[in-house]
C-alpha cells in the first residue's frame, strides 16, 4: 500500500517537474485557470472534478453488468456440449473485435433507429462499456474456472453437490480469488475507456475538460489536471483491489492440498 502511494507521489512530482521546467522556458503556462487560490480557479476546478461521479458511476455499473454477463457467457464456454461452447466462442470473438468508440456511437445513434430505444448519454455509455467488457470478463472467468483443479469438482460431486452448488460453493469462490487482479485491471481499463463516452455528450471528466477548454483556451493546464484525475482514481482502485486480495488471500492461507 505505502509502496504504490510512494510511486504515485513520485509520478506526480515528476509531472510537476516537467511542467515547472517547461514553465520556465516558456512563460505561457497559466495555472491560475485551475488554481485553488483564486475564485475563478476554484470554480473551474470544481467543474472539472464533478465529472468524477459520472466517470466512476458509469464505469462501476458497467463493471457489475459485464461481470454478470461475462459469467453467463463463460459457463457455456466450459461445457462439454459443442454447440454451447460455440455460442461462447462466437460471442467472445465478435464482441471483442468491435472497437469501443464506434460501439458507443452505434448504441447512441443507431439503437433508436433499429430498435426504437433511445438511451440517454449515461445509459448508452454504461451499455456500450458493459457489452464491450463482457467478452473480456468472460475470458477471465473461463480461465479462472478452469484453473480450479478437476479434483475439487469431483470431490464436490462425491459429497452430493449438484452442478449449481458446485459452482456456487466450490469452484467460483476459488476462481474469484485467482482472477481478482485481472478484474481489477479490467476496472481500471474501464475507467480509462469511459473517457470515450464524452463524444456523445456525457458530462464525465473528459467532456468537462473539453468544455472548459472551449471557454478558457488553456488546453495544457486543463488536460494535465484531467490526467491527474484519472491517475488518482486508478491508484485508488489499485489499492482497493490489493486490499481485497489480501483479505481473501489470508482466508485461504496457502493450501498445501492440490
Amino acid at each position, binding site marked *: 500500500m505505502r509502496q504504490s502511494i510512494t510511486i504515485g507521489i513520485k509520478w506526480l512530482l515528476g509531472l510537476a517537474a516537467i511542467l515547472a521546467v517547461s514553465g520556465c522556458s516558456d512563460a505561457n503556462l497559466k495555472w491560475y485557470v485551475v488554481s485553488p487560490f483564486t475564485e475563478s480557479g476554484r470554480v473551474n476546478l470544481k467543474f472539472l472534478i464533478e465529472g468524477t461521479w459520472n466517470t466512476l458511476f458509469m464505469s462501476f455499473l458497467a463493471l457489475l453488468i459485464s461481470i454478470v454477463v461475462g459469467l453467463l457467457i463463460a459457463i457455456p464456454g466450459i461445457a462439454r456440449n459443442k454447440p454451447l461452447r460455440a455460442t461462447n466462442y462466437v460471442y467472445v470473438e465478435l464482441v471483442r473485435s468491435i472497437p469501443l468508440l464506434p460501439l458507443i456511437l452505434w448504441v447512441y445513434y443507431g439503437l433508436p433507429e433499429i430498435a426504437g430505444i433511445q438511451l440517454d448519454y449515461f445509459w448508452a455509455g454504461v451499455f456500450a462499456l458493459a457489452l464491450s467488457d463482457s467478452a473480456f470478463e468472460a475470458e477471465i472467468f473461463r480461465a479462472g474456472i478452469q484453473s480450479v483443479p478437476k479434483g475439487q469438482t469431483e470431490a464436490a460431486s*462425491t*459429497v452430493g453437490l449438484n452442478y449449481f*452448488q458446485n459452482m456456487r460453493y466450490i469452484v467460483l469462490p476459488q476462481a474469484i480469488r485467482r482472477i481478482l487482479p485481472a478484474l481489477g485491471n479490467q476496472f481500471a481499463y474501464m475507467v480509462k475507456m469511459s473517457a470515450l463516452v464524452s463524444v456523445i455528450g456525457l458530462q464525465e471528466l473528459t467532456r468537462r475538460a473539453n468544455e472548459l477548454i472551449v471557454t478558457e483556451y488553456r488546453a495544457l493546464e486543463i488536460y494535465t489536471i484531467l490526467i491527474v484525475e484519472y491517475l488518482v482514481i486508478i491508484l485508488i482502485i489499485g489499492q482497493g483491489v490489493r486490499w481485497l486480495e489480501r483479505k481473501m488471500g489470508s482466508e485461504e492461507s496457502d493450501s498445501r*492440498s*492440490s
Partner: protein
Amino acid sequence: MSENENAIVLNGVHKWFGDFHVLRDINLTVSQGERVVICGPSGSGKSTVVRCINSLEKHQKGEIIVDGTKLTHTRKSVAQIRSEVGMVFQQFNLFPHLTVLENLTLGPIKARGLSPADANERAMRYLERVHIPEQAQKKPGQLSGGQQQRVAIARSLCMEPKIMLFDEPTSALDPEMISEVLDVMVELAEEGMTMIVVTHEMGFARKAANTMVFMDNGEIVETGTPDVFFDAPKTDRCRRFLQQILQH
C-alpha cells in the same frame, strides 16, 4: 432399496479412453461388509475401476450395480449411487477455501438438507472418529498431509455412505503419516464398512482385506483371499508384482 446381499456388482465392464481399451471385461462382486483391496502396476486401470463405480468415469459396456441400483448414467441413478458411496482420493481434494468443519458440513447441509446445528454435531462426531476434533476451525492448508487425508475420510463419512472407495489414500503421504491414515481405515473395516481400497500397502491388506484383486493391463488377473494371494499366487504376473513391491 430392498436389503441386498451384494453391495457392488461389476458385470463384464469395459471402458475405452478414445481408442485405448482401459478396462477389459471386469467382473467383480463385493458383498455387504466385504473389504476388497485392488493392487497392480501403474496404468493397469485400478483408479478407473473405482471411478467407474461412482460414475466419475463412464463405462461403455457391461453392468454396474451398486446397492441394488443399476448405474445407467441418468442423473437419478448417478445421484442415488453417489449417495451410497463415499470416495477418498490420493490428493485429498479438500476444499482449500473452507475450514475443516465447513468441508465436512457442506454436503450434509446442501445435499441432504440437514440443519447447520445437526451437521456440525455430526461433523464433530466424525472428526472424533478420525482423531482430530481439535482441527475443526483450521483451513486444510494448515494441516499435515496425514491430517488432511483423515479430514477427507471424515468428510466422506459425514454423508453416511454404505460403501467407501479409496484410491491410493496414502500414496501422497510422507512415510511417517501413512500409519495414522491406515489406522483409521482399519477401524472403519472393523466396524463392518464395505470398502474397496486401491493400495500397495500390503500390511493393511493382510490386516483388513477379505479379498485381494490383482489387475494388469485393464484386466483382473487374479483374485483370492489374502492368505492364498500372498503365499501362493497363481499367476506369474502377480507373483512378480508382489516380489517387486514387497522388496521395497
